[in-house]
């Protein structure tokens, strides 16, 4: 079911695409097209390029020759020459037409292949919003992982990208399988562009558009996936995971963070992809389990410890319902405080800590995950036996015991 479009495709451009036209290819493209359709686009692009160079050099050579040869000589008139020549004019009308028809037909064929998804592709939903992307996998899970572009774990075919200004989401996708996105926007228009796939398509509010791609497998030199401690990740069978990353750019202007609306498509083997989306599947998990998943996947662990030791940010051990001294006075770390600290971290800063917590959006941490986080914090706090936050605030006006 999964390998419908891989016939004749070996997985690297170098095999499938060489010819007179491919010279200079690397001036225009940073990476090989990541699938047969992308390679076909590159081929058409380079063919047009060399045809254009031919015409341009031809025309300019004639122009420069005329300008030098027929430069003005004082006292000498321009000699007579006919100002009209029907056969010549017909020829220079018809020859370009032949080129144009060829380019049009090539463009049309490759376009149809790019747009029409195979019937057996994996169907997912891609949601665009100011200024983020989310992918909902076939099992309802969505990726909680994100990273700063340029961190060591990102692999754009040997280039590491660059340090971004904020984390961008990572979407794990299986290699050598057609994937079909149903795309919709929550607000204004966006456009989903993966340059390595050589396709973009607009994303509208209130209307579905589609996008499909099939990515080549990571090549033999691709690096291995590592966890946050730098240890190589293995599958249940003990196999190491090779991966390759592709940029996602928003290509339709959408406001202040249009240029920050990036993402990463991470191509991994099918079995690892399946394991990953099962891991993120929050269905059937308890709120505490969901909270733990979010804690691990959203990068909370980088600053917030669970064992009470001091990190770059307050530890979560015994945090829930404790008293926190902040620049806005002492507050109780109740449900609403936690919610506020995640969505608008700068609102209150705990004394002794810098204000460097990233902002999370409701798209990154939805209500269910937020509830999960709170439940998870509650499960590791000794103050949680005081009960529900609201009851606590109403029934017990005394300050809670001091934080240790």
């Amino acid at each position, binding site marked *: 079911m999964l390998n419908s479009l891989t016939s004749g495709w070996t997985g690297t451009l170098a095999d499938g695409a060489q010819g007179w036209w491919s010279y200079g290819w690397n001036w*225009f*493209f940073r990476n090989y097209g990541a699938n047969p359709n992308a390679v076909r*686009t590159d081929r*058409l*692009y380079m063919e*047009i390029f060399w045809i254009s160079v031919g*015409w*341009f050099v031809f025309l300019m050579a*004639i122009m420069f020759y*005329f*300008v030098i040869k*027929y430069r003005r000589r004082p*006292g*000498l*008139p*321009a*000699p007579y*020459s006919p*100002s*009209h*020549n029907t056969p*010549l*004019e017909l020829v*220079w009308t018809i020859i370009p037409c032949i080129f*144009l*028809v060829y*380019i*049009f037909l090539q*463009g*049309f064929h490759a*376009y149809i292949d790019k*747009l029409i998804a195979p019937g057996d592709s994996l169907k997912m939903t891609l949601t665009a919003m100011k200024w983020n992307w989310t992918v909902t996998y076939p099992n309802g899970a969505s990726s909680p992982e994100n990273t700063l572009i340029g961190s060591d774990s990102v692999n754009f075919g040997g280039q590491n*990208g*660059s*340090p971004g*200004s*904020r984390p961008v989401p990572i979407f794990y996708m299986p290699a050598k399988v057609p994937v079909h996105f149903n795309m919709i926007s929550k607000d*204004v*228009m966006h*456009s989903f*562009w993966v*340059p390595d796939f*050589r396709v*973009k*398509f607009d994303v*509208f*509010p*209130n*209307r579905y558009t589609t996008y499909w791609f099939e990515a080549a497998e990571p090549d033999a030199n691709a690096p291995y996936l590592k966890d946050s401690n730098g240890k190589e990740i293995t599958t249940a069978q003990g196999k190491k995971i090779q991966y390759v990353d592709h940029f996602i750019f928003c*290509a339709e*202007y959408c*406001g*202040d963070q*249009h*240029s*920050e609306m990036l993402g990463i498509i991470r191509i991994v083997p099918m079995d690892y992809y399946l394991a990953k989306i099962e891991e993120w599947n929050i269905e059937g998990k308890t709120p505490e389990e969901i909270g733990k998943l979010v804690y691990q996947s959203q990068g909370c662990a980088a600053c917030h410890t669970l064992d009470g030791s001091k990190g770059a940010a307050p530890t979560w051990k015994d945090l829930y319902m404790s008293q926190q001294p902040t620049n806005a006075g002492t507050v109780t770390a109740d449900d609403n405080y936690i919610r506020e600290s995640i969505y608008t971290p700068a609102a209150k800063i705990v004394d*002794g800590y*810098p*204000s*460097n917590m990233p902002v999370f959006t409701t798209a990154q941490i939805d209500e269910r995950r937020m509830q999960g986080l709170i439940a998870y914090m509650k499960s590791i706090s000794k103050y949680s036996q005081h009960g529900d936050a609201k009851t606590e605030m109403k029934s017990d006006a005394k300050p809670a015991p001091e934080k240790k």
Partner: protein
Amino acid sequence: MTTLDNSRAHELGGHGHHEGSYLTPKGGFWATVWDWATTVDHKKIGVMYLCAVLFMFFLGGMAALAVRTELLNPVRTEQVKALGADGKELMENGKPVMKTVITGQWLGDMAAWWKGQELTSIDQGNNWYNRAFTLHGAIMVFMVIIPSIPASLGNFFIPLMLGAKDVAFPRLNLLSWYIYVTGSIFAVCSILIGGVDTGWTFYTPYSTTTDADHANVVLMVLGAFILGFSSILTGLNFVVTVHKLRAPGMGWFDMPLFIWAMYSTSIIQVLATPVIGITLLLLCFERIFRIGIFDPALGGDPVLYQHFFWFYSHPVVYVMILPAFGVISEIIPVHSHKKIFGYRAVAFASLGVALVSFLVWGHHMFASSGELGATVFSALTFLVAIPTAVKVFNWIATLYKGSIALTTPMLYALMFLFLFSIGGLTGLPLGALATDLHLHDSYFVVAHFHYVMMGGTIITFVAGLHHWWPKMFGKMYNQFWANVGAWIVFIGFNVTFFTQFFLGSQGMPRRYASYVDEYHTLHVISTFGSYLLFIGFMVHLLVFIHSLVAGRKAPANPWGGLTLEWEAASPPSEHNFDHEPIVTHGPYDYETTVPPHWNAKDYPLPALPANHH
């Protein structure tokens, strides 16, 4: 004002050559101002348009430089050691305290410095960038390129080339200038009260929801709406002028090709501009009354807006480029003293382009429309390429066996052929569907349309200005320094925009305030190119100012042109011609006609073949 004072100084100096010149002041300073403000003389209106357009070009150019400067560095957040009030590093438990700073937001930093604050979020700085590129786009399209050649050079030279005293409706002509100024004031006001961040295309639903408390977008859109009327009235005026006011003896195929191009342009303006008028008005209604035409949240359709918008804005691309074709069709024959090759082909190519231009708007929406529409529009788009290519071939063929003088206008015309060929050829991968899905909305498109719009229209506008400057102001300019300026512009232009083709195909999207490191080097090169471009234009400005203040008096026909404007004095008298001219030769009959004001000794005619008639 320099112009007036200067020509007046000439008079006082006793030269007396300017007697009856349209530039001769009428009495004192205020009387002169009043005379210009109420003039119905097409030449004065043309000069006023020229001043207004050049001023807006300066504003738009400054915005472009701001955009390029912002893009020198990408936006990044960094962790740095926090400093205390005493300037020392803050320490806690023996470790430095870290804080987050945002770098690479030049515009945001400037604004924050102006307000005495510190940048606190990426959004703030990006917002300044978004306003700058919107400002650049809206000004350059609506207030510079569209009116540049038609309203300034067209107004000045259409009646002169037709041998007429004025345009058909002189009062309407003045009105259209005032409408232009009003529209521009609306746009400038919208900038002054905070600017617009929609991009010049005002795509919905972004444009109907952004900055919801403010009237900026409505003001800017109304500005563009008002400017449309100026465009319609000018177009209407020119169509009637061409039909009714040709000099005796001038048939349709005796008209200079500039007139043909302006005629085609005017037809597009009259037919297409009302559509954008209605669209922009609907956009205002949408914003103010929330009527739900374009905004999906209200049940509207955002793609409908794109169809309406491009139904105008694609033909208007040819409103921008056709006049440039006209100017080139004048400059090349005049400066190579050669009959234009394939006059009828060039004339009909203008009309053909105008016609087909109405059928290709959909190629702006390949990434948003269905397969059938995209395919049809792609095919029609390639159709436009044919008449355009034919014109380029004709211009180059005209050079054959010419007597080519590398004057500034001619140098610019040759640069146009170079730049426009690149602009046209890079349209091919954008017209082809498969490649467009990659290149659409990337820097490739930015580079392509700058090669066509700037390398085509603006370069030609400057070429035309140098070609007709002696006629307009009666002064020559320093050709050496003008040529130096032209070369700086040419090099700066290519450095700025050729790099952007690579950026685009490598994946750099348009309208990004920031980018990943891979694109840094090319952006730096592009930005330095834009500074060079600025220097080049400044050289031209100085050359023109020098010409007005201290330029040699221009002869009536400095280049040896055959079209009727060269029969008039330089600058022309108030009524253009002493006697109504009678057309006895074609506009490009260089082989059989000694140009007006030249004599047969300076201009020996070539031997004709025996069968020539």
